């Protein structure tokens, strides 16, 4: 099932210098350097985009749908992620950005922020059920969900089993357009405008047994200049309340946004995949049982820090907060939300444990392999230098046990071996014997 391992995050080999920066930051140790180029281990990659951010040569990038792909549909719906509103700066209001999308060529704009608020309401319902496992972990960030599938399978049952705002927006907008304007479903193309690589993967290779409601994912990086161009050319524009969303929905783009909706209850908002890792470790140890809700976003500052965003996330945050303040003042413009029954938004199936980190299906063999890994690691210098192409000495030991590498990939081991061969050659030369004893 090749599609199972589709990844948005990919390497441009021509730019890669094999420098080892990315291998060290990958949260699932999914990258190795082989023959001087980075290689992503498909099963381990969660599309978090840390490597995209860290690569000094910009060799890592995210594959998204080209802007032209919207032309494949006669009726085009845009789903802008709220991150988009923070990209442009003062003077470029939400209303202007949403209008610019229509001028660009979209027939309909359904704000993902609006769907986010629907998801928030559904979540409140969900959390009031006392049978759910706490802490509840938000499932909005696909990189975090995949991280849990691979590294924290015991937390799968803690995941919030409600569809993400993107999927809800796609389903609702299709329905609205079909009902209001009578457009047949096959002619409708729904496009998410995204700061996020993991969202691309979640559309093209969704979780088990699912089909995404979204047709394509466009990168904010690609559409930024065309939209800016349109807005600069048009000057001032009268703002019509264009199915505008509320403050909570827009704040989902920032860390703390989603969880701020739950005023009662103990909630944590974590951002940055390594911080998420630390918090999930605490959850697995049972130290977070008094926490009700964990909002976990893989990118620094939340979606604003996504690899496909244009603006610096701290600046984008200021822009977004400005927009949110305006919403709070102009509450009159907000459109009343359709109340959605939480059952309609709930996951129909769960996500599965992906045991790619397993050493062996047979536990005894797996224990032996773990033993081997410990032994081999002890034989290494412990510098985690990355010269072998693996992120750490222990990772190389694991690769060796999995038969994906050999001991002499370690240059220190290789040097030892070469020295020993040189010594032996020297022996032959001086004493005519290969025995160290004959001196």
């Amino acid at each position: 099932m090749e599609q199972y391992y589709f990844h948005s995050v990919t390497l441009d080999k021509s730019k890669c210098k094999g420098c080892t920066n990315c291998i060290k930051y990958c949260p699932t140790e999914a990258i190795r350097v082989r023959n001087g180029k980075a290689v992503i281990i498909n099963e381990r990659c969660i599309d978090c985009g840390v490597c995209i951010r860290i690569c000094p040569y910009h060799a890592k990038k995210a594959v998204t749908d080209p802007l032209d792909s919207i032309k494949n549909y006669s009726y085009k719906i845009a789903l802008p992620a709220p991150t988009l509103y923070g990209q442009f700066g003062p003077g470029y209001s939400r209303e202007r950005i949403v209008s610019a999308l229509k001028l660009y060529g979209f027939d309909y704009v359904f704000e993902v922020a609006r769907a986010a608020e629907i998801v928030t309401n559904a979540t409140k319902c969900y959390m009031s059920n006392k049978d759910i496992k706490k802490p509840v972990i938000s499932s909005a960030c696909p990189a975090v969900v995949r991280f849990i599938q691979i590294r924290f399978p015991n937390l799968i049952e803690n995941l919030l089993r409600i569809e993400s705002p993107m999927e809800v927006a796609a389903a609702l907008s299709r329905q609205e357009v079909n009902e209001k304007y009578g457009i047949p479903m096959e002619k409708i193309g729904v496009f998410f405008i995204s700061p996020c690589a993991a969202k691309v993967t979640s559309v093209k290779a969704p979780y088990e047994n699912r089909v995404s409601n979204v047709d394509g994912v466009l990168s904010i990086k690609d559409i930024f200049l065309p939209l800016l161009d349109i807005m600069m050319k048009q000057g001032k524009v009268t703002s019509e309340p264009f199915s505008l969303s509320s403050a909570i929905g827009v704040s989902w783009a920032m860390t703390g946004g989603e969880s701020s909706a739950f005023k009662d209850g103990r909630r944590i908002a974590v951002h940055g995949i390594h911080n998420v890792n630390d918090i999930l470790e605490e959850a697995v140890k049972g130290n977070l049982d008094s926490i009700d809700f964990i909002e976990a976003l893989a990118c620094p500052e939340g979606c604003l820090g996504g690899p496909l965003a244009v603006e610096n996330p701290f600046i984008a945050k200021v822009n977004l907060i400005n927009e949110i303040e305006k919403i709070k003042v102009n509450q009159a413009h907000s459109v009343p939300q359709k109340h959605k029954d939480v059952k309609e938004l709930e996951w129909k199936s769960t996500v599965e444990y992906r045991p790619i980190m397993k050493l062996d299906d047979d536990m005894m063999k797996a224990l032996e392999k773990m033993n081997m890994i410990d032994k081999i690691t002890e034989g290494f210098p412990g510098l985690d230098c990355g010269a072998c192409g693996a992120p750490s000495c222990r990772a190389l030991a694991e690769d060796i046990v999995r038969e994906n590498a050999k001991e002499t990939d370690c240059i220190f081991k290789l040097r030892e071996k070469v020295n020993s061969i040189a010594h032996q050659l020297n022996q032959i030369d001086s004493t005519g014997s290969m025995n160290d004893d004959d001196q």
Partner: protein
Amino acid sequence: MAPDIVKRTSIAMYEAEINAVIHGNGGQAHVEIDENKIVITISDQGPGIEDLELAMQEGYSTAPDSIREMGFGAGMGLSNMKKNSDILDIKTAVNEGTTVNITVFFKK
């Protein structure tokens, strides 16, 4: 492996080790793992436990002051061990040392 099994095994083994160090002047640990369970045997050649039933009571401790000053000797060790293991078997006699056998099953 469910994380709570790892946690329970670690706690039970730790308590047994600390007891061997505090009371038994050190000892030996032997661990056997198979696909169903882990069996930990910790034995020492120390003074032995005079009254096992009393020792199992929470809060009861024979630890000297020097140990209590370090923060140990709260008297919870044996009961913690019992709580966190599936089978706990203690063989002990005065002046003959103590052997603790802890079994934790992987599946319920």
